[in-house]
């Protein structure tokens, strides 16, 4: 039994194996690079384009400054924010007690709820507007108020908020918590407020961020109902002056990036973000 491995022999072999272990095939690298290009090139182009086309003597940020100076920019952005927040408020007030109730008292209704949460995909925004318009036109007092957009956006946000709340409630043992609270003397509304909601915080915040992203970016309904939301404003400005449209596009990008960062920091980036994409 000869004593084999000398120190000199072991060192080269360890290098050999470390390299073999970590080598990434060219095949995979190609696709990663290609995907990276697909993602980055348009953003880069946006930045480049929005800083171009300026007259000599003007600031390179000319288009951004023009846009910021436009009062319509501020008012449309503010309008969109308001609508987004209203959507979140209505959505939460409507959905949180409902999903809570179904989980607690009506578990048999879960399949129905699952089915309903898919319906907004069957009826995309453009189709929904077709059905809603004649009905809304008759209710003139509502029709002219931007709040009507919030009410409609609740439907678009429904699948994602439902999924987030459903998952959040499934993660906690709802029945046990409620019974424990009951045995300590708490009534149901109080239990919902003090016991359940804090445990659902991540789901609610995640769902709300998604809702805001949807509401801020929505164009179809807003344009057809003729409201000047941020995306409608972007379209109007952009189709007349491409440079400004692209500058606004970059501003949108920063906003969406921020919202997604918020979602990702909540640790649920992948799944939920994928969900939002299915609304455009």
């Amino acid at each position, binding site marked *: 039994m000869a004593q084999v*491995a000398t120190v000199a022999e072991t060192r080269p*072999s*360890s290098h050999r*194996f470390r390299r*073999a272990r970590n080598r990434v095939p060219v095949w995979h690298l190609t696709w990663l690079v290609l995907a990276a290009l697909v993602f980055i090139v348009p953003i880069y182009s946006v930045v480049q384009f929005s800083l171009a086309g300026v007259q000599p003597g003007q600031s390179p940020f000319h288009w951004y400054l023009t846009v910021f100076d436009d009062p319509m920019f501020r008012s449309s952005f503010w309008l969109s924010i308001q609508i987004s927040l209203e959507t979140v408020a209505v959505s939460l007030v409507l959905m949180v007690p409902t999903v809570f109730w179904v989980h607690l008292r009506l578990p048999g209704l879960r399949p129905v709820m699952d089915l309903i949460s898919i319906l907004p995909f069957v009826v995309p925004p453009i189709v929904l507007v077709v059905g809603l318009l004649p009905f809304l036109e008759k209710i003139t007092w509502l029709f002219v108020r931007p709040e009507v957009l919030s009410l409609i956006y609740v439907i678009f946000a429904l699948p994602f908020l439902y999924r987030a709340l459903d998952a959040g409630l499934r993660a906690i043992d709802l029945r046990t918590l409620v019974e424990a609270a009951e045995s300590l003397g708490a009534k149901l509304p109080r239990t919902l407020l003090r016991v359940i909601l804090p445990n659902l915080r991540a789901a609610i915040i995640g769902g709300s961020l998604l809702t805001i992203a949807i509401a801020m970016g929505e164009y179809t309904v807003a344009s057809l109902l003729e409201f000047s939301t941020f995306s409608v404003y972007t379209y109007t400005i952009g189709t007349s002056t491409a440079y400004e449209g692209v500058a606004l596009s970059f501003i949108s990008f920063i906003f969406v990036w921020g919202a997604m960062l918020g979602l990702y920091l909540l640790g649920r980036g992948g799944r939920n973000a994928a969900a939002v994409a299915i609304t455009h």
Partner: protein
Amino acid sequence: MATIELRGLRRTFGSVVALDSLDLDVHSGEFVSLLGPSGCGKTTALRIVAGFEWPDAGEVLVNGRDVLGQPANKRNMGMVFQAYSLFPNMTAQHNVEFGLRVRKESHEKRAKRARELLELVGLGTAMDRYPRQLSGGQQQRVALARSLAIEPSVLLLDEPLSALDAKVRVQLREEVRRVQLELGITTLYVTHDQEEALSISDRVAVMSDGRVEQFGTPAQIYNGPRTAFVANFVGTMNRLEGTVVSSEDRVVRCGPLMLSVPDPTFNHRAGETVELFVRPEDISLELLSNGNKPAPGLFDGRVTSLTFLGPVTRVGLATDLGPLLADVSSAVALGLAADTVVAVKLDSTALRSIAR
């Protein structure tokens, strides 16, 4: 059949040392188990042999040739994983045929071999079933058949029975051993279950923290543990502390007793404190009639607990030598209750000392 030699295997994951200069050799046709708790490196060692991990240093020789340069799919070894390894989209038959299919064997040859092997593991009737239609034990049998289909030089098993029910585990380990003996295939088996390792292996390597603590036959490991770890890990051991009275005669004083240690490798000097180990089954009890002192060579103890284990009852005792566990037949134990005073006898031929 092949021989396996592991020389100086070393592997770290970040700051954790998984393998610390491991040496092992497996003879042709031998069944060797790597036994140890989680994290001792046994699975890492096996995966290095299989080719799914690489060591930072060291060699793996199969039949004297270094295999570390070969990728996993060229080493011609059979491997059985803990669970979930059957391809879900194929029947049992096609699973077993897979290795042969990759080697471009003919349809008839593949089918014949698959049938042979499935019958060998007792599943000749299940050839057309899908993995999801098979129980855990059946799946592992198919996995075994599949790994043998390619006529490997070496068989590797990574805790193949851990995910199964206790009764199935006992049945199946006999199966594995039977198949191994019939084919005479060199086998390396990883497990944390010492009963499993001791019952089916030719030799057992007890591992801890990346090193082999002891490598020997099951009897050697069980009856002659050479380190405290092995003594404690394999079976249950009582630990006694004593002072050496005479090094030549190998006499140690433990409490009121003078014990003679039969171990010829006993090398402690007079006055040293040593640890002695004795197994519960080597301690016997006698009921003491009230007030009587125990006979010479025996000492008294008070029953502190009784644990019914089926054929034996484990009796916890408080004695002058410290707390002890004794296994007595359950019939005898019927006469015992908490706080009963008994006479305790140690079988001194079963005393072991661990070399420092």
